[in-house]
């Protein structure tokens, strides 16, 4: 098997003295959509931050296309083709929609130009002169994803894309994620809403207390609701979405 796009091996990350990630290992193949599931506090976001270099792992390996990046500064990792859509969207509120996109493009040309992103997200074109701080939650999520796309990533890390959004908007966001996948972009999708993510994912990992506790085929897991409920520490009833 060829080298996966992202290979994380025995990652151990600490915040001060607290040991957050315990030997976390997983892979994302080229063009694959992998869901990383788990409850609040399971370590999903810390895993993403460790991959991006925002939090330096104490030990373990992160390799992008076979090149080790653990310990590299975030801007270098981003320039190697990793796009990040952070939890809670996090735009530059004082800049306009267009300026947010230009900032992310930053001279990197590729298949995805700002023009093409705006074609896919016509709503953003209408709002391109507006300050990002004045967008609705759904619009901000679109912009956050658009911002990650214009950097032409080969791997997108998407953190809690559905959080705080109305169901209709969530559908729209997820449609966009599927489009990206069809375009050949590999995606690591972090979600608390397991059923939502499993519907579009190829494979899934489940985290609990900083460890990977399950790994398997997403479609198979989706059929086994009791298993999901068990892994996520929920009652089966609570899963209904």
């Amino acid at each position, binding site marked *: 098997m060829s080298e996966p796009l992202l290979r994380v091996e025995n990652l151990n990350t600490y*915040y*001060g003295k607290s040991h957050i990630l315990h030997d976390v290992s997983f892979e994302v193949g080229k063009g694959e959509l992998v869901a990383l599931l788990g409850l609040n506090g399971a370590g999903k*976001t810390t895993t*993403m*931050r460790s991959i*991006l*270099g*925002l*939090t*330096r792992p104490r030990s373990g390996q992160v390799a992008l296309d076979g090149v080790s990046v653990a310990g590299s*500064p*975030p*801007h*270098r*990792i*981003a*320039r190697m083709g990793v796009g*990040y859509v*952070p*939890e*809670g969207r*996090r735009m*530059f*509120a*004082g*800049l306009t929609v267009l*300026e947010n996109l*230009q*900032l*992310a493009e*930053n001279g*990197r040309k590729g298949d995805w130009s700002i023009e093409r992103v705006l074609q896919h997200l016509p709503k953003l074109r209408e709002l391109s002169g507006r*300050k990002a*701080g*004045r967008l609705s939650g759904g619009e901000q999520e679109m912009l956050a994803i658009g*911002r990650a796309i214009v*950097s032409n990533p080969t791997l997108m890390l998407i*953190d809690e894309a559905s959080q705080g959004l109305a169901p209709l908007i969530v559908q729209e966001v997820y449609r966009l994620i599927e489009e990206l996948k069809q375009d050949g972009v590999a995606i690591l999708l972090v979600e608390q809403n397991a059923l939502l993510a499993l519907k579009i994912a190829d494979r899934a990992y489940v985290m609990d207390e900083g460890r990977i506790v399950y790994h398997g085929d997403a479609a198979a897991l989706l059929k086994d609701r009791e298993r999901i409920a068990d892994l996520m520490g929920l009652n089966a009833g609570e899963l209904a979405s």
Partner: protein
Amino acid sequence: MKPIGIWGWVATAILFVLLLLAPQLAPRLHLALTICTDVLLFAIAAMAVNLLLGYTGVLPFGNAAFFGLGAYGAGLSIQNFHVGFITSLVIGTLAGVVGAVLIGPFLLRRRGIYFALLMIAFGQVFYFIAYRFTNITGGEDGMNFTRPPLEGLGIHLQDAGFYYAILLIFTLVVVGFWLLVRSPFGRTLVAIKQNEVRARYLGLNTDRFIFVALMISAAIEGLAGACYGLSIMFAYPLLLDWHQSGDIVLMTILGGAGTIFGPLVGAIIYVIGEDILSTALPWWQIPLGALFVACVLGFPKGLLGTALDLLPGRKNRIEPGHDLDFAAPIIADRETTR
């Protein structure tokens, strides 16, 4: 950034008419023209601070090092090489840039209060160099020099002529600053001010942007210092001192960091306030200090920043202030800001 609109242009036009008429108006207000020149000089110096503090989010609490280097650069080049007016200003500007190139790589390793403290420390190094190397700088006594004639024309700029030369420089700096903060580079600085971590994961080498901003700021600061040297025809170590830095930072905050004309407003209040109060009261620093405290507590955006917010239609202005990522524990940020 919001287009400033018709009233913004009108206010700017009125401001420049007043600045043009200052040599006529000042005597009626019992102000010396040199005070008006000082206002413009320190407004330029405070704009240099504003670029870093108001638009990039780092506090240059050692900016006077560049200011003093500008004054010494101009003075030493006049004394030793008999250069002309414009050349001395160019050399003073470059002296500031050289200072930034020397200390920048060290400053960039830190952010926030550590950046400010480290910059004070490096600034004091320049102060002690000027203080110690008596045979070059005149040490504590400082160094006198004459204001050289304008290149080509051989004109000696005096009084109103000198004021207008400084006003021209001030205008050029304002226009350059305005273009800079609207450029993609300037917008990137605002993004870094708002959230540096976020800018980094978008692939921006924020260290490099801050370094360039520091050099531009040092160039402006050096230019202001060179103008000041030519104004008083004197350079002395206290120009490099952290007290001087503090005064310039104070003007910036008083007027409003993050606005184009805030530094000018701060310089007007500080320089004229100092002039009036210091002749009237022996303890003139106290009311000025009280104003500063009131400003920081009551108008954190400065006098101009607060006034602009009160204008209709700007109430809900979104500030390029600092904010944090949800998923960014403070400890983690400390590890990554490096």
